[in-house]
């Protein structure tokens, strides 16, 4: 493995100060008949290229809504979202999203599901095989989603999101449903994929340790309506040691901020 894990502050070689993603005073209101629900209010955030930003916040504070808006599935009711300086218009290949659930098509094999993420839909088999290998599902290429474990399904969903070679990877609690051991292993894989592909990642998690292990910055959202409450840069070298005293300091800080 390359030495990027231990080169100081940031984990990604290609970290830059050019903003790749800008959220400017973004609000989202859901309307159902006369009922209105303000999910996000006046949220601003700038993410630079190569960053790993993790969003933390209570259930229902609008984290999924936020990722779906960045992905282009939902439109903000106010404010603007820019990717690479340009306002987004709907979904695009520059952004890949892993949903909170795997959302694989149950009627399609793993290989077919992943190929649907490829721009050429898998006509070039090599790219597909690379992706299968990346997430360790070579032996399950022809399996149907019902034959996969939760972790395998999430890995297939990750491969599908990576298939379009996005600049920004959006992860909605991708490890939420996994057991502790699989989860740790997936964290390592995620780190590797992030570093080797100079990706910019915006992830959602409920796991404080996971946020500290992975992130260059942690954004804490306040509940109802969701807005940025605090931003905490994590200034620890990679790979991060969960038993180090500094790790504990971040833990305390985050717990306090989430109160």
């Amino acid at each position: 493995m390359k030495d990027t894990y231990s080169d100081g502050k940031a984990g990604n070689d290609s970290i830059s100060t050019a903003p790749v993603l800008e959220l400017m005073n973004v609000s989202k209101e859901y309307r159902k008949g006369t009922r209105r629900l303000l999910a996000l209010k006046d949220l601003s955030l700038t993410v630079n290229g190569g960053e790993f930003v993790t969003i933390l916040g209570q259930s229902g504070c609008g984290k999924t809504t936020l990722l779906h808006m960045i992905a282009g599935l939902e439109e903000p009711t106010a404010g603007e979202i820019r990717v690479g300086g340009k306002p987004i218009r709907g979904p695009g290949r520059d952004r890949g999203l892993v949903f909170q659930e795997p959302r694989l098509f149950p009627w399609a094999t793993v290989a077919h599901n992943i190929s649907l993420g490829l721009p050429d839909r898998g006509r070039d088999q090599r790219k597909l095989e690379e992706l299968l290998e990346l997430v360790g599902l070579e032996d399950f290429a022809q399996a149907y989603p019902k034959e996969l474990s939760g972790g395998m399904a999430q890995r297939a969903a990750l491969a599908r999101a990576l298939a379009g070679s996005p600049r920004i990877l959006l992860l909605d609690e991708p490890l939420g449903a996994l057991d502790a051991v699989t989860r740790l292993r997936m964290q390592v894989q995620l780190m590797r994929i992030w570093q080797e592909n100079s990706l910019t990642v915006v992830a959602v998690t409920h796991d404080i340790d996971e946020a500290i292990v992975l992130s260059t910055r942690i954004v804490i959202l306040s509940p109802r309506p969701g807005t940025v409450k605090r931003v905490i840069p994590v200034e620890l070298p990679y790979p991060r040691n969960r038993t180090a005293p500094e790790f504990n300091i971040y833990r305390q800080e985050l717990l306090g901020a989430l109160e």
Partner: protein
Amino acid sequence: MKRGVRGLAAPLLIILLWWLGAESGVGPGILPHPREVLAALADLAARGELQAHIRISLLRVIQGFFLAAGLAIPAGILAAGFSPFAEYILPLLGFLRQVPPVAWIPVLIMVLGIGEATKLAVIAYAAFFPIFVNAVLGITQIDHHFWEVARLLEFSPKEYLRELILPAAAPSLIAGLRLGMSNSWRALVAAEMLAAFSGLGYMLMAARSLVRMDEMFIGIAVIGLLGLAIDWGWKLLEGYVLRWQSRE
């Protein structure tokens, strides 16, 4: 397997009772002896008459069924996609659904004559509604989560159809096609009894006018068995196409 064997018990029992009844001379003249029926069957088959009727009936049902499917599936996709469309035509369809296919036969004979067109229309009519209704249901019930995936992956219209709509609605579509086929088989026999000079339905009517009870029995048995065989075919196809579904 065991269940399939059990299912044979009732038909075998009926045949046995029939045989015993015929041997002991119950209802001679009305009920033919099974031996006579078998002899008539051999005779019909030897003359190639039975095969000819079967061939023409199957051909008609296949033509009518494909006509119905070719209209009902695109119409179902349209109706599912544009809710105003559904609002405009659902009351009409509700009315038509109450009119059994046979009821149209006199009207169709007046308009189309006793030719193939009448039979085709009746068969297609019988198959149309289950296929259409199931197509609409199957498509409108697709999980909106999957539509989001399709938008995210920037599907082309063709991909929406091939990768999402048809496979996601497949369980419902196949159920509709299967039911439609079984409806059209039944409608076909009715149509052939009233407006045909060939086919299994005609064979039944011809046997009646010649008072050939044995041939009527053959007609009924063949109609039922072929219908069953077609339905088994659908079951096999269903199992194959829906192999991705989890077994409960």
